[in-house]
C-alpha cells in the first residue's frame, strides 16, 4: 500500500467555452498521486490528460474542484503564487522543446534557480550536476536549437530537475522522439523514481510504458476511466496483450 499522497485531485472539472457552448474537458476527476511513484496518465488524444496535467502544475485552474499538492489547494492561489509553486515544487518536461533562445544550454537549465533568486555560482553548480545526471554536461555551452530532439529533451529533464522538486511532470516527453531517444528519456525518468525517490507523473498514449509504471490512470473523454495500482497493472499487462497492440496502433494514427 502506498503511503501518504503527494497530490490529491478532488472532483476536478474543467470547462472550456467554445462559441456559446461550454465544453467539459475534465469531468469530476478525483485521484491521488503518491511520493516516489511513477504514475502514468494515459488515454487517446483529446481525452483531457494534458489538461489534467496542466491543472496539477497550476497552469490551468480548474472550473470546479480542488487540487491539493503537499496539502495546499493550488487552485486557490493567485498567478504569482502559482508561479512560485511551480518553481519550487514541480519540475516540468514538455512535449515541445521550449527555450529562451538567446541563452545557451546551461544558462537555460539555471533559469528556474535564477528565478528563485539563487546566486549565479550556486545555480551554475546545480545546473552542471543536473546536466551530468542526464549525460548532457558536454553540451553545456551549446545553444539548445543546435541539439537533436532527444538531446534537447534530456536538457529539458535536467532543467526540470535542477530545483530538486518532489514532483516531476512530463507531458508526452517522448512524443517526438525516435525509439532509442525515447528509451533513454524513460530510463532517466525511471531512475528519478527508483534512485532519487521523486514522484514522476507522465502523460502518454504509448501503452508500452505501462510496464514501467507503479500506478496508472486511464482517461477517456475527460473522465477517469480506471485506476491501476502495481498489482492491477501486471494483471492487466498479462491478460490484455493483444488488445494492447490494437490500442497502440489505434493511438499512433491520431
Amino acid at each position, binding site marked *: 500500500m502506498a503511503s501518504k499522497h503527494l497530490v490529491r485531485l478532488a472532483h476536478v472539472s474543467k470547462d472550456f467555452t467554445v462559441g456559446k457552448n461550454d465544453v467539459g474537458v475534465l469531468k469530476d476527476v478525483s485521484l491521488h498521486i503518491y511520493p516516489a511513484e511513477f504514475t502514468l496518465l494515459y488515454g487517446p488524444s483529446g481525452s483531457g490528460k494534458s489538461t489534467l496535467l496542466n491543472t496539477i502544475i497550476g497552469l490551468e485552474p480548474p472550473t470546479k474542484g480542488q487540487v491539493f499538492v503537499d496539502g495546499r489547494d493550488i487552485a486557490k492561489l493567485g*498567478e*504569482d503564487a502559482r508561479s512560485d509553486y511551480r518553481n519550487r515544487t514541480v519540475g516540468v518536461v514538455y512535449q515541445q522543446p*521550449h527555450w*529562451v533562445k538567446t541563452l545557451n544550454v546551461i544558462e537555460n537549465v539555471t533559469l528556474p534557480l535564477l*528565478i528563485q533568486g539563487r546566486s549565479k555560482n550556486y545555480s551554475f553548480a546545480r545546473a552542471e550536476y543536473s546536466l551530468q545526471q542526464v549525460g548532457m554536461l558536454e553540451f553545456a555551452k551549446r545553444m539548445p536549437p543546435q541539439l537533436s530532439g532527444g538531446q534537447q529533451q534530456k536538457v529539458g529533464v535536467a532543467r526540470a530537475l535542477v530545483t530538486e522538486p518532489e514532483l516531476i511532470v512530463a507531458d508526452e516527453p517522448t512524443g517526438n522522439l525516435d525509439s532509442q531517444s525515447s528509451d533513454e528519456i524513460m530510463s532517466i525518468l525511471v531512475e528519478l523514481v527508483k534512485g532519487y525517490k521523486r514522484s514522476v507523473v507522465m502523460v502518454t498514449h504509448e501503452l508500452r510504458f505501462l510496464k514501467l509504471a507503479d500506478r496508472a490512470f486511464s482517461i477517456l473523454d475527460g473522465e477517469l476511466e480506471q485506476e491501476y495500482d502495481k498489482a492491477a497493472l501486471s494483471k492487466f499487462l498479462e491478460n490484455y496483450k493483444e488488445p494492447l497492440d490494437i490500442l497502440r496502433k489505434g493511438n499512433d494514427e491520431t
Partner: protein
Amino acid sequence: MKLSVLFQIALKSIWGKKLRSILTIGGVVVGIGAIVFLVSVGYGLQNLIVEKATGLDALRIIDVSTVKSQIIRLDEDSIGRFSSFENVDNVQVVVNVPGRVKVGGSTTDTVVFGAPVEYLDLSGVKVDQGSVYENDSSNAIINSAALNVIGIKPEQYQTFLGKEVNIELVLLGELIATNDSPEEQTVNSEVTLTIGGIINDDNTPYIFVPLKVLTDQGIHNYSQAKVRVKDNSQLANVRDTIESLGFSTKSASDTVQQIDQIFSIFRIVVSGFGAIGLVVASLGMFNTLTVSLLERTREIGLMKALGAKRRDIFALFLFEALIISGIGGILGVIFGYALGETGNYVLNTLAVATGNEPVDIFQTPVVFVIGLFLFSLLVGFLTGLYPSRRARGLNPLDALRFE
C-alpha cells in the same frame, strides 16, 4: 528574480538581434544627437553674445545712483557702508558735471567725469594713446569726439598729448551739499589740466579727470558708484540690500537676463525640431519592442511556467527599453557633441584663415548633457511601458502554445 540577472538576459536578447538593435539604437542616437547639436548652437550663440555685450566682469558689477539726491546722498558714508557688505570686494565712485574745454580759441561743451583710476579699470575704460592718469596728478583723459569739435585732427593727437587745457566746471549744488549744510548753490570754477591720454570714441564729448580734482573744488557727493560683488551669484542679494537703503541700481545682468530669456525660447524651439527626431526614434523603439514581444511570446510563457513572476517579466522588457534608450542616449550625446566640436573646429579654422577671432559657436553644458541622457531614459521608460505591461499580463499556457 534578481534584477541583475534580468538585466543580463535583456542585454543578451538585445545582442541576439544585432541588426535590429543597432538600427533602433541608431534612431535614438540621431534623435538625441540632433537635440544636442541644435541646443549647443543655442548655448554657444548665447554665451557669445553675453560675453561680447558685457564682458564677464560686468556681471559682477552693480551701478548705484540716487534719484532723490537731496535726501539720500551718495557720499563717503554710503560708500563706506557698501564696502562693508560681506560679499562686496570693490566699490568705486564717479562724479559727472557739465563742463567746457578750452584749447586755444576753441571751446566745446563736454561731460567731465571725476573718477579714480580704479573706477576706469572697473568700467573697462581703455586709453588708446598716451596713458591713464595717477589719482593725485593733474592729468586728464579726453575722447576723440571732444577733440574733433575743437578742431584737433587724428594725426595731431600725438603732439596734443602733454598740452595743457582749461576746463570750466559747473559744480551743481546738490553735489556740494552735506548733511550739515543741505542747501548749497551751484557754482562755476575752472581748473587747468594736462592731457595725458586719448580715447578713440566719436560719440559724445567727455573728459576724465582724477576724482581729487573735483573734490578739491568742494564736491562731496558722487553721481554714481560701481559696486563689485565677489561672485555673480551674490549680485541679486547685494543689490536688494543697496536698494533697501533707498538707492536705485542697474546692472549688466539685467541685459544678460533678457538675452537669457530670448535664448531659452530659442533653445526650446530648436529642441522642438530635434524632438521630432526623437519622437520618430521612440516610435521605432516601440515597434522593435512590440515585435520582440511577439517573437518571444513563447519564451515569456516558458519563463512564467518555470516560475517567473509578473514583475520579473515586466522588468525584463522595461530593461530592454532602458538599455536601448540608455545606449542611444549616451551615443547620441557623444554624436551631437562630436558634431558640434567638428563644427567649432571647421568654423575656427575658417575664422583664423580669414583673420578673424576664433569663437566657439557650439557649446554643450554638462548639466544639459546629463539632463538629456536622463530624458532619453525617460522616453525609453515610457515607450517600454506598454509592451512591458502586455508581456506581464500574458497567460503562460496561451503564451507557450503561441505560434
